[in-house]
């Protein structure tokens, strides 16, 4: 009985953790290059609506995921243009992107509200692996294939960031852009690319919500998940593997906020992930943990050649 409950909880935790993980991985790349993008919520919801619309019209859910990525990516370039090229304040530009994304998705998604989606990305069970006791049931029974993509991306993106020249380039642009510039790196191009990667992943995360996780479009369906991603990025200390840890933790909290509903009022449970995000940052701010946090030095600073 308890076994079943724990296995069920852990298995559903993965389903919640997936969109958080995808978007957090993207935001980590964006911020590592020095660009804070508070538009995650907006990019996610644009991804969600365009994925649903594409799958609904063409009947191809994978094409829907692709378009979700493109939509998130294009939206992120707007933030890139305003904050990298026009050097505007990154906080305000990101907020603008979220407002615009919520507005546009509400406008163009209106017709899809309440429509059933026939072509979804359905869950799979992995043969053989699902026979493993406990672990098999948690990881390999009735899970979305997108989960495995997210899980595979984590070590890959971590490796690229910390063990390849591409990663060194990204980090140097985020830590000391003028030094990177004198070393012949095109600071603007690196930043644009990282912002674009962040946007694509946020879009895909949104697409997962509308055509894989619970296939339906509802206005404002991301419901603050994009903001949790911003908190998770700090929680993860801009490190993809810790991002996985954080996504699982918050995925579990989000799942529990449904699971515990027979005993506690649902509204109180829904506060849990947001309250916990604050609590987690408070705990991280103490003592030795603080030193290992370190945000990228040039985060939020537009780069102007010739100035310090």
């Amino acid at each position, binding site marked *: 009985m308890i076994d079943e409950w724990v296995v069920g909880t852990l298995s559903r935790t993965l389903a919640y953790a997936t969109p958080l993980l995808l978007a957090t991985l993207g935001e980590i790349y964006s911020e590592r290059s020095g660009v804070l993008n*508070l538009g995650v919520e*907006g990019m996610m919801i644009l991804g969600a609506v365009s994925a649903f619309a594409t799958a609904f019209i063409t009947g191809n859910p994978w094409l829907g995921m692709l378009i979700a990525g493109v939509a998130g990516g294009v939206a992120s370039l*707007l933030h890139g*243009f*305003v904050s990298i090229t*026009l*050097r*505007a*304040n990154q*906080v*305000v*530009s990101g*907020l*603008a*992107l*979220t*407002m*615009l*994304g*919520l*507005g*546009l*998705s*509400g*406008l*163009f998604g*209106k017709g899809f509200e309440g429509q059933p989606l026939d072509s979804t990305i359905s869950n799979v069970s992995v043969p053989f692996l699902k026979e493993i006791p406990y672990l098999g049931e948690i990881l390999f029974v009735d899970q979305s294939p997108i989960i495995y993509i997210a899980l595979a991306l984590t070590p890959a993106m971590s490796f690229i960031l910390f063990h390849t020249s591409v990663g060194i380039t990204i980090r140097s642009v985020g830590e000391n852009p003028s030094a990177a510039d004198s070393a012949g790196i095109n600071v603007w191009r690196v930043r644009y690319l990282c912002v674009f990667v962040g946007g694509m992943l946020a879009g895909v995360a949104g697409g997962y919500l509308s055509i894989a996780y619970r296939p339906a479009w509802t*206005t404002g369906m991301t419901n*603050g998940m994009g*903001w949790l991603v*911003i*908190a998770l990025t*700090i929680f993860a200390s801009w490190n993809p593997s810790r991002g996985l840890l954080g996504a699982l933790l918050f995925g579990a909290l989000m799942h529990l906020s449904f699971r515990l509903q027979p005993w506690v*009022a649902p*509204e*109180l449970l*829904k*506060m849990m992930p*947001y*309250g916990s*995000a*604050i609590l987690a*940052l*408070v705990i991280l*701010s*103490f003592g030795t943990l*603080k030193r290992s946090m370190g945000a990228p030095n040039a985060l939020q600073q537009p780069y102007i050649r010739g100035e310090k």
Partner: protein
Amino acid sequence: MINKLPFEIKKRQNPSGLGVMTVSLFALFGAFLVASIVFWAYGANPINAFRALFSGAFGGLYEISETVRRATPLLLAGVGLVIAFKAKFWNIGAEGQLLLGAMAASWVALFSPIPDPLLIPAMFLFGFLAGAAWGLIPAFLKSKLGINDVITTLMMNYVAINLILFLVQGPWKGEKQWGFPYTDEFPSAARLPTLGNTNVHWITLVIGVLAAVLIYFLINRTTPGFEIRVLGSSPAAGRFAGMSYVKSTLLVMFISGGMAGMAGVGEVAGIHHKLMNPAELSLGYGYTAIIVAWLARKNPLSVIVTSLFFGAIFAGGNAIKVSLGLPFQITDVFNGLILFFLIGSEILMSYKIEWRKNK
């Protein structure tokens, strides 16, 4: 190559007032231009849409009163945000602070033993304090522990939303509301008077205008205001001069959160007369107030004008929602576009073009 151009782009120290206004107007024009593309893509004639928007905001006395009514919460919250942004505190939490103010006012109106004649003042007082308390938490976390203010203020919005949902569906649910998630209606002594047949609760409006003037003087003419400005532009210099960053941040967020809280009091005491679903209660005034404060270029007095502008967008947006069948998110589209154009055009203000003189 750049030297061969007939002009030169130079950095300018202090953009002139006229320059700021010209650029802002062009930015607004650009935002409306893109918005018309959105209208067109949605299948609505942009010219009709703008005509409906304009007449919905200014078409008659009632329309103007609707604009003023929507501007009221934006004015109060916006003035509070100006002082936070002056101190470089990213208060994205005005929405939550507004909701907490509404919640405290509802408690006073429905459950407190306060006698009738004192109800309204008590609602504003408790609303201010509740909003301020909600704002002081992130202020404390940032100034003492260095925790990111954007995150904490935002997360607290979601905590506030769910707290109110809990109250109106649970312990505070009205007995006479047919099972709807509302509290009972406020007694008449807890309702703000309105101007004639309009929804303008003028007391809140007067508080907002007075607060704009007071906060202008606080920032520009007093010692705490001076400290806020110094610590906002250069925390290191301020600390060196013996100013307390913690004290200044707490003061700023006490005022900022409190102003948003009073905006919430106005909405429940002047418009709804009950506590209800946060999405119906506020329409995102707390987020729009960020743009209101930004467009005012951090000047509390300018907020009086910019809040009216966004009040018009809310009122006009509501009108085209009805006449053109557009969903209410159209105001979010406007807000997002305007904000993008405003900050994108700021670069034009800090640079000037100078023609080269022939040698």
